[in-house]
């Protein structure tokens, strides 16, 4: 059966794309952030994943308010990076893994998660930036899973946790490629808010408590409503739901491989975390 080698949680701030384009990794502003990826690269070299299931939120690229699925699964042979409108460089398409995608769809719907399937899907910085950060020279095929954090009501933290658990179960019974090594990616966060007079809101103590909980008490964040999360982490800090789902896929006990936290990158408290299942 396929196996999950671990989960990587990563900020996806758009400005990262420009910093990479300009080779600013060693710039004093960016260095504390990019340095956090060295340990991730070493870990990836060690675990050698074959495919990444990337849980992310769309920012007005593949979905508009005309149709807004709560959960969607990409089933496409490739995923093209669309023009986001504000000028970050576009990247070459990522390869998909349709067999694993359809297996996830079958298993998730069987598990009573009524997901939307997408045989065509554009991706934005929420997919491309983590991919560029994790695999500067290319990357593995991907299965994108999109969670609505555009329009309320968002799926609850409890539901996102359950989704992650269901993805974990689905991967563990994928037998088409029995030795397939899967890495989960939770894209987004941590605390930030872009809009309103509260723009620039960051909550370091909540972020740190949340990240601790992912190791010690993974259901801790499931107590919060969507509005609670906006209040505690900012309007876009709710992207921690992606981290929560990616954590839940790992099962009961995990080991922290690496963790880096830096404020600010752009308007965001940037976090990079790797967890792996504890033997």
């Amino acid at each position, binding site marked *: 059966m396929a196996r999950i080698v671990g989960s990587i949680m990563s900020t996806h701030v758009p400005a990262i794309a420009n910093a990479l384009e300009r080779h600013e990794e060693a710039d004093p502003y960016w260095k504390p952030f990019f340095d956090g990826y060295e340990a991730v690269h070493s870990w990836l070299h060690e675990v050698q994943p074959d495919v990444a299931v990337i849980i992310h939120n769309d920012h007005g690229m593949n979905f508009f308010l005309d149709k807004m699925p709560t959960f969607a699964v990409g089933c496409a042979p490739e995923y093209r990076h669309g023009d986001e409108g504000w000028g970050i460089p576009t990247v070459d398409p990522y390869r998909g893994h349709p067999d694993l995608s359809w297996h996830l769809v079958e298993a998730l719907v069987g598990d009573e998660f009524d997901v939307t399937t997408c045989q065509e899907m554009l991706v934005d910085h929420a997919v491309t930036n983590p991919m560029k950060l994790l695999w500067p020279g290319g990357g593995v095929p991907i299965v994108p899973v999109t969670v609505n954090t555009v329009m309320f009501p968002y799926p609850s933290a409890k539901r996102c946790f359950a989704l992650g658990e269901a993805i974990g179960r689905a991967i563990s019974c994928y037998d088409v490629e029995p030795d397939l090594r899967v890495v989960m990616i939770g894209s987004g966060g941590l605390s930030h808010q872009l809009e*309103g*007079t509260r723009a620039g809101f960051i909550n370091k103590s909540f972020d740190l408590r949340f990240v601790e909980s992912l190791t010690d008490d993974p259901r801790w964040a499931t107590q919060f409503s969507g509005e609670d999360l906006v209040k505690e982490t900012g309007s876009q800090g709710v992207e921690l739901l992606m981290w929560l789902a990616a954590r839940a896929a790992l099962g009961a006990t995990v080991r922290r491989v690496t963790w880096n936290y*830096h404020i600010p990158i752009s308007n965001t408290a940037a976090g990079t975390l790797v967890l792996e299942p504890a033997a």
Partner: protein
Amino acid sequence: MGEDTERHGIPGTIIFDGAEAKRGYGLNKMCFSFNEEANRHAFLADEDGYCRRYGLTDAQRDAIRRRDVLALLEHGGHPYYLAKFAGIFHLDVQDLGAMQTGLSKEEFKARLVEAGR
């Protein structure tokens, strides 16, 4: 922001729910169209005409004309779509943060650094 937009009780924050999605549909649809370069050019060539094609209200058209981000939010704009409007003018999220909080960009950036201490 007015009482109505703070009905969820989070200061300085609009929860973008069904009411906002309905209020801002045309405005957001216009901003979503800016994912295409040809549309960005068409907007710049005739801003108000482009707004009318998407059925923006008078208040929304006025806020677009004034580049008034807080007013655009008040009238149903969603930050992800408004970012595409702002991108036409090469405004990044820190420019927008400064505009919305009444700070200079440097002051806004300093506030972010302070949040990390």
